[in-house]
Structures are given as C-alpha cells and as structure tokens.
C-alpha cells in the first residue's frame, strides 16, 4: 500500500528518528509512505482567524500535491501537522466560498476541490492496517515494559479533528498492547505539555511537564509514549532541570510510538535514533531485555 505522506519541518531534522522509525515499521506492515514531491509548511498551530485566508494557502497546496500523487488520503506523523492540515481542510470543505478565495490566491495552480482526507498515521494503523495484523508482526514483544501513552492536545481537540474519543481515547493503548507492552493509564495524558510556550514561558512548560511525568511515575509508569515532536521535546528535555529542582524526581524516557513499533518488530537499533534522547532510554530497554 502506497500512501501520500506529509512530513513537516521537524521530521526532517529534530525528529528524524520519528520519521525513520515510522518508515521502517511501516514497511514491515507493507505500507509505503510516499513523501509529497514538494511540500510547504503546514501552517503550524492551525491558523484560526476567520478573516486571514492567506494562511490557509499552504495547506491547500499540500492537498493539491497529494492529488497529484494520485491519492485522496494524506498521512502525517506529527500531531501538530495533523491538526493544522485537518482543521484547515475541514474549514475549506465547510466554507466553499472561502475555498474559492483560497483557490484564487493560487492563480497558476489548479483549484483544490476539498476531496483530500487528512489522517494521522495512528488512524492508518488502526483503521486500515489493523492492530491484529500488527500483533502478527511482533518479533520482540515489549513484555514487562510499563508505558504511559501521552496524547497531548492536537490528536484529540477540537472534536472535529479528534482521531478518537475526546475524553476516553484508546488508540495508543490498543496499539501498545498489540506490541505486548503494559499500559499505565495517567489522567493527564490529554493535558497540554506547554507547547510553544516553552520559548517564552519555559517555567510554565516545565511545571506542566513535572505534573505529567509524576502522574506517570506515581502509577508505576516507566516510559511515556507520544506522537508529537514538540511534546517529545518538552517532555524529554525539560526533565533534566526538574531533577535539579525536585530532589527525588524520577526521570522517565519518552518515546515516539513508532520507535516502540520498530523495537517490537525487531528492527535494527539504529532506526530508533535513541541517541537523540535527553533522558537516556538505554538502561530501561536493557533491563527489559529489549536491546
């Protein structure tokens, strides 16, 4: 199966381990993510103003490229790209007059007709591949690894774009269970990590990360799993300071779900890009006999 894929900025640099592990595990499942030949910034954190349509042009271009690839589904890995593209797409579908104006901004290109569907890689795995099929491909079950799924905001909110139940999501839990991991359910799995506020208000983000991580460790969690490069950055890198600030603070490694997939599928360690992590996951993985 070949599916058009939108990477977005971070997947090409900061989070290239996310992309690499996703590509590798996708190919185990017979899925080929075909990168758009030419792509534009998603417009990060959906442009919400009603009166500035120019910000929605880049997503429209991405959808045109998708159609040129001969697809009508566009897959993203990054939660923020997913959210932005999906929201903008829905906006264009709901407001044909606005879509017309957006189209008028792209004079040389063909008009976008609103027929592309944006899906997150998690949805593809759940709805098209199926977790049962994934279970068959597991070579190294993540036995005994207590992981806490962390959704953050943008996969679930607002409700128009939610890939799962808003209040009680299970997609990551089901995925990780199929890999053999043990699930730790934290009530803060939908709480914001501080997002881009990490730049202006590092303290704010830091406090949130403290809450999120301690809620996990309190419940016996050994690792956090996410699907967003920004969540990953906040949850991973801000922990260093927390150890200094709070005596007895227990650091936990943060993974992208695709890293755990690759691990369970028995792929080579180098696709995981574990060296990029601030909180070293090696000890944990070794202790569980996973590397």
């Amino acid at each position, binding site marked *: 199966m070949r599916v058009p894929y939108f990477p977005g900025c971070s997947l090409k640099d900061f989070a290239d381990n996310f992309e690499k592990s996703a590509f590798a595990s996708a190919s185990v499942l017979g899925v080929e993510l075909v990168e758009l030949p030419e792509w534009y910034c998603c417009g990060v954190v959906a442009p919400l103003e009603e009166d500035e349509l120019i910000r929605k042009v880049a997503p429209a271009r991405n959808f045109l490229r998708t159609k040129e690839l001969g697809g009508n589904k566009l897959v993203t890995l990054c939660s923020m790209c997913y959210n932005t593209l999906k929201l903008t797409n829905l906006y264009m579908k709901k407001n044909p007059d606005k879509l017309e104006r957006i189209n008028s901004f792209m004079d040389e290109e063909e008009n976008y007709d609103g027929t592309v569907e944006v899906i997150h890689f998690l949805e593809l795995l759940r709805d098209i591949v199926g977790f049962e099929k994934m279970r068959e491909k597991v070579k190294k079950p993540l036995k005994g690894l207590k992981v806490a799924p962390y959704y953050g905001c943008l996969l679930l909110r607002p409700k128009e774009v939610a890939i799962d*139940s808003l*209040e*009680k999501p299970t997609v990551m839990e089901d995925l990780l269970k199929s890999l053999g991991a043990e699930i730790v359910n934290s*009530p803060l799995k939908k709480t914001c990590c501080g997002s881009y506020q990490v730049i202006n208000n590092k303290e704010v983000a830091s406090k949130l990360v403290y809450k999120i991580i301690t*809620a996990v460790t*309190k419940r016996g969690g050994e690792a956090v799993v996410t699907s967003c490069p920004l969540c990953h950055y906040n949850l991973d890198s801000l922990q260093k300071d927390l150890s200094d600030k709070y005596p007895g603070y227990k650091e936990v490694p943060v993974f992208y779900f695709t890293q755990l997939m690759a691990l369970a599928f028995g792929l080579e360690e180098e696709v995981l890009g574990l060296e990029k992590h601030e909180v070293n996951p090696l000890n944990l993985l070794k202790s569980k006999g996973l590397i």
Partner: protein
Amino acid sequence: MRVGVFVCHCGRNIAGTLNIEKIKEEVAKHSGVVHVEDYIFMCSDPGQKLIRDRIKEKNLDAVVVSACSPSLHEKTFRNNAASVGLNPYKVEIANIREWASWPHEGKPEEATEKAIKIIKATVEKVKSNIPLEPLSVPVTRKVLVIGGGIAGIQASLDIANAGLEVYLVEKKPSIGGKMAQFSETFPTLDCPQCIETPKMTEVANHPNIHLYAYSEVVDVSGFVGNFKVKVKRKATYVDWNKCTGCSECAKVCPVKVSSEYDVGVSQRKAIYIMFPQAVPNKATIDPEHCLRLVYGKGCGLCAKTCPAGAINFEQKEKIEEIDVGAIIVATGFDVMDPSLLTEYGGGKYKDVISALQFERILAPSGPTGGKVVRPSDGKEPKTVVFVQCAGSRDPEHYMPYCSKVCCMYTAKQALLYKHAVPNGHAYVFYIDVRTDGKGYEEFYERVLREAEATYLRGKVAEIYKEDGKLKVLGVDTLTGKGVEINADLVVLATAAVPSEGIKELAKVLRIQTDEYGWLKEAHLKLRPLETATSGIFIAGAAQFIRDITDTVSHASGAAAKALSLLSRNRIEREPLVAEVNEEICSGCGNCVEACTYQAIKIDPETNIAKINTALCEGCGACQASCPSAAIQLTNSYKKQLFEMISILAKE
C-alpha cells in the same frame, strides 16, 4: 348557487386600510355572488343578525364572511348560519384582516387587491362545498393511565373518585415511581413514605381502579372515545392471588442482583419485592437471574419455602385487551446514566455517584439505614462534592435544557448530608441556582446558613483519582481562581432524561416526542396536557421534568381533561374526511401508504380503496398521493383547489 358575501370592517382594523367599496364592487361581479354587504362588526349581535336576515331574505345557499382569521370566528359564523337552517359547512371565512389589512397597512391598494382575490377564491371554494353533518360516535367511559408514579397515581385517583373506571398500567412490579426512591422532599422535608404510600394503598383498594403492575401497553388502535388497548402482563412466576408478600422466598434465594430500586447501591435477590411498602406487595422473579429459569432446572428454593405455594415457574405472559375512551400517559423521567459522563469518571470510580443514588444513601429507609457512607469502602465521606448541571445545559455534549429540579435537591442533599455528618463538608459547584417555587428560595437560604456548604460558581472540568482521593478540577468564577478539591465522594446531579422506552410507547400511541423523547404537547402554552392525538393526555414529567408539586397539579389537570371528554356518552367529530370515487379508483394503494392512520384499506374483493371514516383524521395526504382524482378530501376537492388557484395565480 346563491352566494352571499359579508364584509366586516372590524372597526378600523379592516376598513382603515382596505377599500370596502371597491371590494364590494368587485366581488359583486363574481359569478354566483347574489348579495354583498358590509358592516362595522360582523361578529357583533347586530352583525350576526344581519347575516341571518339576509340568508332568509335572499334565499342564500352559501355564505362567505370576509373578516378575521377562521381560527377566531369560524365557529361563531357557522353556528349563526346553522340557526337559520343553512348548513354550517356552507359558510367559509375569507381572512382579510390578518392576511391583508394588517400586514400591508402602508399599501392600501395592493392590500385591497389581495383581499378581493382572497374573497373570490373563498367564494369559489364555498360554491362546491357540500352540506355535512358532524360524525357522532359513542364513547367508552373508561380511562387508561400508563405509569404508576405519583403522576399516574394522582390522575387515577382523581378519575376513579369521579366514578369512572381506570386501568393503571405500571411496567415495574410496584407503583410508586421515582418519588418512592427519594429520601426526603424539598422544601418541606417530608418523607415520601409518609405522603406517597397512603396514596399507593388507596390505589390498590379503590373499587374503580384496575391495577396492572408489571405490565406494558403493547398496542393501541382506535380513536378518541374508542381506543382498543393491548396490555402485556409479564410473567412474574408468582401467583399473585396466593402471594401474601411475606418475603420468605427472598430470604432463601441464593442469587444476588444489583437493586434497581436502590439504583445499584444495594442488592436484591432474584425473587424480590421491590421495597417493603410496595404496592402490590407481591414477589416477582427476575427471569434473567433466577437459576431455575435460566437453566430450566435445579434450585427452586423459593418454591420449597413459600408457605402459600405461590411460586409457578411455568407461568406465561398474557396479553389482555381493554377498551377505553381516553388515555393518560404518565411515564415520568429517568436520570442520565453517570457512566456517560466519562470526564467526571462516572461508571469508572465507585465513589462518583448520581444524585438518585445519593438519595438512597440518605434515605432513612435506604440500604444504609440513612447512615451516609460511600460505596467503595463503606467509610463516612468527610468531603463531598456536588456537581450540578452534569449533562444539563450542555448542548455541545449532552442535554441543552436545564433539568429544573437539581438546584433544589442538591441543596436538600447538602443539608441532609450536614445533618448526617456534622463534621463533614460539602462543596456545591453550580452555574446558577434556580429556586422557582413556593418556599424554594427560603429553603435555599436555610441550606446556605444551616448546611455551611461552600457554593462555588463554576462548572467542573474533570474528575480523576489521585492518591486515593477524587481530584475535582473546577473554578470559582467569582474570585477568578481555579479550584482543586480532593473529595471522598462526588455526587453528580445528572440530567433528567425521558424514561426508557418512551419513544417506542409513543409510536404505539401514535403521539409525538420531541428530539430528546419528552412527550410533545398539543400546544406548549395553551394545551400542555393534551397531545396532538385527541383523547390522549400527558401527566407529569413525561412531558418535561417537573417537581412533585407541579407533577401532582399537572396530573390532576390531565385527569380533569379526560373527565371532561368522557362526561357525555357520545362525542362529535368533524366530518371532514376522505371519500373514494369507486368508479375511478384503480386500487394502486398509494393512498394506503400515504395514510398515517391506517384508515384506508384496499378491499380484496373489489380492489378498490375503502375508508374507515372513524380513523380518518382528514389530513388529505391520500388525495395528494392519488394519481387520478379517485380519493379526495370532503370540501377540499381538487376542483375547489383548482378554481382557487386559477383565481389567485392570475395577475
């Protein structure tokens, strides 16, 4: 055809805008019109006399009164004409006030033009009207009351005391409804056992009331005054004629099931009496859990124990048919299942409960004997958080409406809790406190002083368990601060919702529900006790959530409506029904499909449509479905419509 047209001035209401002389002049030219006359108030005594005189003098055989809306005076003018021997259906109203003079005040000429067209079209209609006599049908002077809560009980007693027979059908094994589950009632703090139980007993002993407990209405046919009702009497597996209600059976029954009456706070047995004061006070076996009934053999301990030999595992359900003239629907309400409120941990945490469950915990006759303990570990909760509007006033996620009684019962519960746990503390999250009833505001004030509860103005965001406590995340909008409370027990004032199965029942009764399932009244303001189907009335919270005071008043109102309907032996119906031209009918059955009331059948002998005029409501859907003009509505014939259209459509 000799048509007389009478043009009313309605003071200046009509004459102030319309050119009466022009109207008279134009209308007089219309074919068939032999007399035109105007008067300042046609509906006044002299005005009516004028019409009567002209009918006689001019030998009129049809009359058009050009005046106000037919919904105001159609009856008046028809009766007036009838008094001098003109068939009332030969009188039609042309509405030139609401439809011409009033809405076009600034355009007198166009308005006059429009009025002339309306009058001419009405003249065309009345010319082809045929004289009709009202249909008179006998009535069965008995009433069916569906639902045995306080509404059904009150309505049944009112009707039975007036001397009419009542069939009271209740789906549970006992009557009493929600009220029997309450601890104490606001604002008087009476216990329902003291005020409802006597009424329940009265129902059981009343010679005019046939109580069908553990029964359901499965089919209703017929029409006002003549309903035929099929009632399913479910198998109780206990011969109620023998059962004495001694409860020995329940003592020996080995199966424990969550109690519906206690809303899961306690357990009952597979053979059970709903509660000690149940009426009828008879045992019922729950076939889904009884070992004998599930496996078809074994157990049978109850049968061995029963001193009266009342247990009968072979009992079958029965369908009984009853004839009634009116039906009162008093099916009440339910509360939203707390497990739907996932963000509040409903259904997930044992100590997040619904207010109805808390009623049972507070009730002196409840499973804990009135001792307030929490479900998870039986400990006394020291911090209780009440969350109001849980599922109410939330069009985005749940119910958009205000559930109306929660403010009051939450206040009551906070007070009763304080009485039971003097060193405990209650927090109440609210959006607005609504106390719209006699003595309610006073009661709320009493609670504020006496319960020492902390009222927080804000809606709770979410609840989760942290370190053994229930963490409630809320806000106090008055101080502008976020709020976190670590609670022992959370009580959700879950939204009131229509009772389960009401939509199916409404279908059986051919009455309407609104989008949530509340029964739809004929008119929200003026006919709140009636449904659009004549002869079927609503009592109590089935129409919309209401407190006990209002429910009882509403039920008495419904009873009065039913009594007034059945005060005579016959009732009259409008004779405007469909009729078939057998020569033309090809028996295609389109009309059968189009008829909502199953009033049309194809006669298998002749292959021609036949109408049961008793069932026909006169909507005319059949005539629109007929490709030839074989089925038509009396006095709305296609010919009439065609003539009217051709007048109105021309420039």
